[in-house]
């Protein structure tokens, strides 16, 4: 007997949503998270594309006039320089946009590399258990017990150079432990379940079970921790730069633009406001988005 058209229509409306469609639908209900996502896209686009459209290069100084060298310094916001100029007469708008590239890159890259390290440690510890688990997790405990900021300062002063990669490396060294614990927890609870057992029964190698069968299950908590981590790492970069160990000038980052800001407090407050607002809005957006994702990805909530 043929299925009537209506029945067919009925069937399509009950088509099962994929997991990510469900997550997206739930995330949409979290208005602040969506606003944050849009804001983040705008900020990222502005930092990527913006430097091509501003009039001044981030290192151009306003005045090269040897008779009157101070003319371009500390100019308050004007039509020419919407965000004013800094102590060397450089355009703050251009520096905020370009510095955003650096700060965002540090945020994303250090989260990504810490994630790789953390997933690796957590997966090995959780899957193999026993002595590997004990050793790796005790090491994680040790790293967790060490005060982060002072040792970030030490590492940043030991490793030569003042580049972006150094900061990424330094933040990574102290950033992988949370991911490792999350991944280990998931692996411990899943490795004895039927689907892992089944994979083992049909002859899948340990490596295949670890990376293909178990890893996707860590996705939800990892996404949340990574989202919150980007914001946290941007703040770490700013703090390191404030203490003088971050990205070295003349390359701007949101952090090192604030490095000399304390002295600008009296005569050039715009130098404090703009990079700070950029950091604050970005981190705030990442925090809201992470919070929204946590709710949307939470399996305990009703679909």
């Amino acid at each position, binding site marked *: 007997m043929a299925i009537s058209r209506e029945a067919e229509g009925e069937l399509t409306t009950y088509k099962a949503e994929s997991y990510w469609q469900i997550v997206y639908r739930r995330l949409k209900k979290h208005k602040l998270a969506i606003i944050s996502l849009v804001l983040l896209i705008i900020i990222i686009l502005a930092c990527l594309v913006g430097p091509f459209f501003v009039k001044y290069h981030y290192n151009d100084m306003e005045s090269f006039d040897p008779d009157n060298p101070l003319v371009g310094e500390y100019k308050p916001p004007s039509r020419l320089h919407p965000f004013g100029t800094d102590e060397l007469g450089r355009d703050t708008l251009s520096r905020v946009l370009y510095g955003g590239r650096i700060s965002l890159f540090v945020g994303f890259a250090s989260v990504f590399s810490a994630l790789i390290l953390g997933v690796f440690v957590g997966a090995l510890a959780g899957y193999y258990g026993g002595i590997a688990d004990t050793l790796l997790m005790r090491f994680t*405990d040790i790293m967790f017990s*060490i*005060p982060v900021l*002072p040792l970030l300062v*030490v*590492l940043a002063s030991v490793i030569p150079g003042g580049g972006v990669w150094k900061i990424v490396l330094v933040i990574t060294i102290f950033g992988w432990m949370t991911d490792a614990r999350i991944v280990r927890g998931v692996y411990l609870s899943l490795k004895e379940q039927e689907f892992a057992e089944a994979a083992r029964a049909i002859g899948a190698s340990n490596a295949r079970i670890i990376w293909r069968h178990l890893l996707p299950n860590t996705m939800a908590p990892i996404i949340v921790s990574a989202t919150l981590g980007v914001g946290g790492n941007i703040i770490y970069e700013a*703090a390191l730069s404030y203490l003088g160990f971050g990205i070295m000038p003349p390359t701007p980052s949101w952090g090192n633009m604030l490095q000399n800001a304390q002295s600008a407090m009296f005569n050039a*407050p715009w130098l404090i406001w703009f990079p700070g607002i950029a950091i604050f809005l970005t981190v705030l957006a990442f*925090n809201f988005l992470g919070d929204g994702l946590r709710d949307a990805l939470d399996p305990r909530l009703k679909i």
Partner: protein
Amino acid sequence: MKNYLIRRILQMIPLAIGVALVTFIILNMVGDPFAQYALNPRIKPEDIARMRHAWGFDLPIHLRFFKWFWSMMTGNWGVSIFSGGRPVGELVKNALGWTLKFSVLSFIFAFIIAVPIGIYSAIRQYSLLDYVFTGFAFFGMSMPTFWFAFILLMIFGVKLGWLPIGGVMTPGMETAPFLVRMLDQAKYFLLPVVVLSLFSMGSWMRYARSSMLEVIRQDYVRTARAKGLSERIVIYKHALRNALIPIITLLGLALPGLISGAMITETVFGIPGMGRLTLNAMLNNDYPLAMVVLLLQSYLLILGNLFADILYAVVDPRIKYT
């Protein structure tokens, strides 16, 4: 409980040694603190050698670690290399005095504001005030502390001129009468305390809120409502007391923060506390001092975690450790 305690304390020993080892290795990467003396032609090489000997730097690295770790454990913290040869214990004591004043004040301030607000937000979930408080909590968690400090200094210190822009007291106030001195101190304490409490306020608000939300969903709360108790009794007697259990453990976790100080905030406000001491020790490669302050902070963190776990078991009779 007793077995659990003994096991936990035994587990802390390798952790403590491991932390000391990792800290020692990282600090050793900085290099020889006496190398900078060799650049000074007025300091004789034999004097440098004598100093290296005095601080144990002529020993091989593993022996140096054991020697140092032993003297650390026996309370013989040694002498700072660069602070005019003052004992490390004395430097730590002075810095700790300042840090404790600020941290205890901001802890109390943050706690008495954050917890009631968090509980309220949970009871009135999705109300307008809940959104406002949630917004405030995220605001606190997303603000780079030093930038927030700049902004406050700019507004209240520079623009309005109401509060000093750094330091801990007006010069000459040490001998003033008690009340005058307290008023003077209050002016210096206000901004740092606000900055220090902002971050913890945000996260504790969220913590208290989710803890209360968790409890409100429990069956026994529904039972309490079902048997006709008034909403007030349900919330304050049945729910609140259970919601406070995880919050109490925050006390344990906050312990290390009280003593380790805040590097950034203390730098911005020019407070001579533990954070500044740590930072300066790092910057000057003042290795005996740096090791002591870092280890102190790590060990307080470990002890704080233990304390939190014990507290949790003490206040929550449902938890049985074996």
